[in-house]
C-alpha cells in the first residue's frame, strides 16, 4: 500500500459565525460543528490545518463578472433596499439573501478552495479538504442538487469533466441536469448528469456511483478529482429527498480516494446541520484512513447530537422511486456518452492544470506566519499505524464530482 496521504484541511474560525437569516436553511454554523467533531475525534493530529486567505475580489472576478463581485462587495443588509434592480439582476433576495459579512463569507470559502487547489497543484499534499467550499449554483460540485453553476462553467470544454449525481424532476431546484445534457462544442460528452428520483438508498446509489465513476476515470484519465460532498443527500435532510446513510455517503468518498489521484474535497449542500457535521467528520476520517467509533466524544456541541450522541442517523422514510430498470437505463446512457470520448494521444488536450490568478500586490502583513521546512512540519503530524482498508460495502452516496484533467500532474 502506498504511504499515507498527506492531507491539508482548510478552516477559518470566522466562517461559522455567518448567519443567512431566519428561515434560511443554510447554516454556516454547521462548519463549526464539523470542526469540533473532527477535533473531538482527534483527527487534527493526522493532518495539517490551514486558514485560507480571503480570496481577493480580483480572484473572484477571474470567473465571476467584475460587476457582480463588486456588487457583492458593496451590498449590506442595511443598504439593500437601495439596490432592488441590482438585487433582481443578480438573483439575490429570498433564496440568496444579503446578510452581514456576505462578501467575507464568499471570500473565505472561495479562498479555501483556491488555496486547496494550489496546494495540490504544487504537490504539497495529496488530498485537500475545504468543507466550507462547494457551493455550486453561482454561475460562472456529491449534493442532492444539480451543480449547474459548475457545469455551466465547464460546459464547453473537454479539459474539465463534470459529473453530477442529483435529484432531478418534480421541478426540483435548479431544474437542470437531465441525462441528455452532456456538454457542447469541445465539451460535448464532457458533462455527465446522473438524474435520480426521490428516495435513492445506499445500495443503489453506491453501486451506480462506483460504476459510473470508475468508468469515467478509466475513460477520461483525470489528472485530479474535485469531489463535492453535499450532505443534503442524506436521509432526513431538510431539503433533500434521498435516503442515504452516512456510511453510504462516505463509501463514495472512500471509493474516490482509492484512485490515488490528487483530490480536492469540498462541502456543499446539507441543511440538517448536525447530520452535515456527522457526515463530514466521518468523511474526514475516511480520507485519513481512520474509522470513527459510533459514540461521539464530548465536545462543545455534543448536545446537538442527542439523544443518541452517535454518528449513525435514522433511516429515511422516503420511498425509493428509482427502479432498477431506470437506474440501469441511466447508467447505459452515461456509458453510451462516455464511449463517444476517445482521447487523441498526445495532441491538443492532455495535461491541463490551471494557473490561478495571483494578485500582484503584497499582503505580507496579513500572513505573517513564518513557515517551517517540510521536514519539521511532518514531525508534528502524528500518524497512527493502523490501516482501515475499508471494504465496507454496506452503503453509498455522493452528489457530484468534477474530474479535473488539468489540475496537477498525473502521479
Amino acid at each position, binding site marked *: 500500500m502506498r504511504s499515507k496521504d498527506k492531507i491539508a484541511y482548510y478552516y477559518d474560525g*470566522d466562517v461559522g*459565525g455567518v448567519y443567512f437569516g*431566519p*428561515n434560511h436553511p443554510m*447554516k454556516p454554523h454547521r462548519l463549526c460543528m464539523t470542526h*469540533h467533531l473532527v*477535533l*473531538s*475525534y482527534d483527527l487534527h*493530529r493526522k493532518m495539517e490545518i490551514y*486558514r485560507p*486567505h480571503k480570496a481577493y475580489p480580483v480572484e473572484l472576478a*477571474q470567473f465571476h*463578472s467584475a460587476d457582480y463581485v463588486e456588487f457583492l462587495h458593496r451590498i449590506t443588509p442595511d443598504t439593500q433596499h437601495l439596490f432592488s434592480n441590482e438585487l433582481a439582476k443578480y438573483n439575490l433576495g*429570498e433564496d440568496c439573501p444579503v446578510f*452581514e459579512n456576505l462578501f467575507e463569507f464568499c471570500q473565505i470559502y472561495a479562498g479555501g478552495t483556491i*488555496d486547496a487547489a*494550489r496546494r495540490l497543484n504544487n504537490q*504539497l499534499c495529496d488530498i485537500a479538504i475545504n468543507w466550507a467550499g462547494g457551493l455550486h449554483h453561482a454561475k*460562472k460540485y456529491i449534493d442532492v*442538487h444539480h451543480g449547474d453553476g459548475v457545469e*455551466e462553467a*465547464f*460546459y464547453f*470544454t473537454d479539459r474539465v469533466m463534470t459529473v453530477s449525481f442529483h435529484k432531478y424532476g418534480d421541478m*426540483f*431546484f435548479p431544474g*437542470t441536469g437531465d441525462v441528455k*445534457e452532456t456538454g457542447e*462544442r*469541445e465539451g*460535448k*460528452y464532457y458533462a455527465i448528469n446522473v438524474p435520480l428520483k426521490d428516495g435513492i438508498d445506499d445500495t443503489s446509489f453506491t453501486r451506480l456511483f462506483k460504476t459510473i465513476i470508475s468508468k469515467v476515470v478509466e475513460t477520461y484519465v483525470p489528472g485530479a478529482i474535485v469531489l463535492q460532498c453535499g450532505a443534503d443527500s442524506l436521509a432526513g435532510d*431538510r431539503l*433533500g429527498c434521498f435516503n442515504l446513510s452516512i456510511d453510504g455517503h462516505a463509501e463514495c468518498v472512500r471509493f474516490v480516494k482509492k484512485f490515488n489521484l490528487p483530490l480536492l474535497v469540498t462541502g456543499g449542500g446539507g441543511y440538517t446541520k448536525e447530520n452535515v457535521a456527522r457526515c463530514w467528520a466521518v468523511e474526514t*476520517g475516511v480520507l485519513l484512513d*481512520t*474509522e*470513527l*467509533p459510533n*459514540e*461521539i466524544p*464530548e465536545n*462543545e456541541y455534543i*448536545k*446537538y447530537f442527542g439523544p443518541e*450522541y452517535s454518528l449513525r442517523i435514522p433511516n429515511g*422514510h422516503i420511498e425509493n422511486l428509482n*427502479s432498477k430498470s431506470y437506474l440501469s437505463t441511466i447508467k447505459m446512457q452515461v456509458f453510451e456518452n462516455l464511449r463517444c470520448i476517445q482521447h*487523441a494521444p498526445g495532441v*491538443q488536450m492532455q495535461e*491541463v492544470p*490551471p*494557473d*490561478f490568478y495571483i494578485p500582484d500586490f503584497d499582503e505580507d502583513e496579513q500572513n505573517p*506566519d*513564518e513557515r517551517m521546512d517540510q521536514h519539521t512540519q511532518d514531525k*508534528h503530524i502524528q500518524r*497512527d499505524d493502523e490501516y482501515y482498508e475499508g471494504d465496507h460495502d454496506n452503503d453509498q452516496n455522493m452528489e457530484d464530482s468534477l474530474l479535473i484533467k488539468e489540475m*496537477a500532474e498525473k502521479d
Partner: protein
Amino acid sequence: MAGWSMLADGSALDCVKTPEKKLKQNDFWVDLKPGSNGSDIQLGSDKLRCEFEGFLVRFGKEICGRDCFRPLPPMLGDGQRVDLLKLLFAVRENGGCKVVSDDGLWDLVALESGLLGPNLCSTLKLIYIKYLDLLERWLMRVFDDNEHLMEFQDEIKDFLAKVPDQKKKRKDEAYPNLELEFKEVKSCADGEGLLALDSKRNVEKISDSKEGVIVLDGDMNGVGDEKKAHIDLGECVVNLEDNGKLFDNDEIEGVVTRLDGGSKCDDVVILDATNAEEESFCRKRKRESLCGLLNWVVGVAKDPCDPAIGSVPEWSVWKSHGKEEMWKQVLLAREAIFLKRQVESSADQWQKTQKMHPCMYDDQHGSNYNLRERFKCRKKLLSDKTVSQGRACSESSSASQSELDKNPCTEGMEDGLDKYLPGTSDLSTADSAIDKYASALEKYVPKRIPYGPRFEANVPEWTGVASENESDPKWLGTQVWPLEKVEHRYLIERDPIGKGRQDSCGCEVPGSIECVRFHIAEKRLRVKLELGSAFYRWKFDRMGEEVKISWTEEEEKKFEAILRSTPPPLQKCFWDQIFKIFPTKSRADLVSYYFNVYLLHRRGYQNRVTPNNIDSDDEEESGLVTNGNGHEADKSPNSILYSPKKPYANFR
C-alpha cells in the same frame, strides 16, 4: 407519424456507423470506391459523407494506433453538422490549412462548406485541426512521396481526385439527396427505386407540412375537414391502446419484429448496426411484407387522393378491422414502435444507436400504457434536443399533432408553421422553423447553457509546472496546525486518534446534567491546552456554551422570553426586536448566542424530555415555505428552498 419519424431519425444517426461496420466486415476499404461508380455519388451526398467519416475513423485508428477519434459528425454549437469532406476540400482548394489560417480565409471556407453563422472561424479551424489536419499532413506525404503507395492509398487518391470534378458540376446542389424538395416527391419513381432513407425522409417531410397530415389520415379527407381528421386520429390511437386486448401481445410483437427486421433490410435504415448477422437473415424472411407497407405509405405520400390506396373508414370502426388492411398495419406499426421500446428495456437490450430518453424505459405500471404520457415525455425530450441539435424536426411535428386534440391554441400555430414550411424549403430551414414551433409548444424549455467567456471558466493552458508565484506559501493558506512553535512544555495525556466517547465515568450520577457539563468542560480544557494558539485562531473561545459568560442572567432571560413569545417560524421582525432590546450587543454576538447557547440549551432539554421530538432549528417545523411576512410564499420551483413531496415536519 411518430413511429416513422423516429425511424428516420435513427437512420440519420446510424449512417455514421454503417460504413465503419462495412469496413470491418470486408476487412479493408472495400467500400471506399465511391469515385468508380461515379454517377450516383456527388460530393455532399449523405452516403459519401458517411463513408468519408467511416474512412476517417478507420484512418485515425490506423495512424494513431488506437482509438483516437472523436465523435462524428462534428457539430457546431448551434446544431449544424459539419460535413468534413466538404470542409477538407474547401480548405484544400484554398491552399491548405496553413494558408487558410495565414490569409484569414476561414470565413470563406465556412461558406464553401455550407455552414452558416457568425464567428465560425475559430470553431471551424479547431474542428479542422482536430479532425482533418492529420489527414492533410498524411496526404501531403503520400502525394509528395510515392514510394510506398499501398493499394488503398491509390484508392484514396482516386477518390480525392474524382470528387472535386463532380463538385464543380454540381456546385449548385450541395445536398441533392438530403434536401429532396417537396416537389421531387411527386416526381419520384416508385418506392423501390428510391433509397429507403430518402423515401422516409420524404414522407416525413410531407407530414411536417399541413398536407402531410393527410398521409396518415388517408382518405379521410373526404369525410371532413383536416382538423377533424387530426382529432380523430389522435383519439383513435388512444382508443387503440385502451382496447389493447384487441391485439394480443404476440400480434403486436409480430409487427414489432417485422418492422424491425424490415427496416433493417433497407440498406440505409439500419437501426442497430451491431446486428449484422440478424440483418441478412431478416432480409430474406421479412422483406416482402414490409415492402407492401412501405409502398403504401409512399403511395399515400405521392398522392393522398389516389383511389388505388383505398379508403380508411371512420375511426370508430378501426378496431374492428383486421390487420390485412394496409392502413391498419401502419397504425399498428406506429404503435408497435412505441411498444418496442418497452420490450427492449425489459429484455435489457440497449439499442446503442437510439438515443432515447430514459423516461421511455421507466417501469410501466399495468399492462396498458399511456400514449399521451409518453408523448409528453417525448416532447420534453424533443425540446431537449432542440437545444443541442436542430434535428428534432420530425418528432416535433408528431408531438404537436398529438397535442392538437387537447390544445386548441396550437391550431393557430399550425398555420404559422405552414409559413415556415414552404414546399421547397431546404431541410435546415425547416428544421429550425420547426424547432421554433416545438419550443413554442413546450412549456418546459430547458435552460440554454450560455456560451462564451462571460459564462465559462477560463482554463488556461498547462505549462508543465505550477506557476512560480503560485508556489509562494502565502497563497497556499496559513498553517494553523500543527503549531509551528512548541508553545508549552507540559505533557498532555492523549487519547488515541479516533477514540469514541466512553460511557463509563466516575461521576456520581453518570449522564446527569452535571456529569455532562463536567465532561464537556474537561474536554474543553484539554483541547485548549493541546491547541494552544490554534484554540484562539479557530475562535474556540467564542464557541459553545461559554459564550454566555459575557451575558447576565437577566439578559439571558430576556432573550429567551422574546423567542418564546414569537412562536416559530422565526420572523425577520424577531431579530429586529432582539437588536432593539440589546442595543449594546453586536449582531454577531446575538447570533452567536442564539446558536451556541440558546439552541444548545433547547436541544439539551429536548434530548432529555422529548427525545422523540427534537429539532435544532427554530424554522424547521414551520416549514420553509413561508416568507418573511409569515404567509405562505409562492415558492417557485426555481427556489432552492423548494422540495416537492418533502414533508417539512420533523420526522425523526
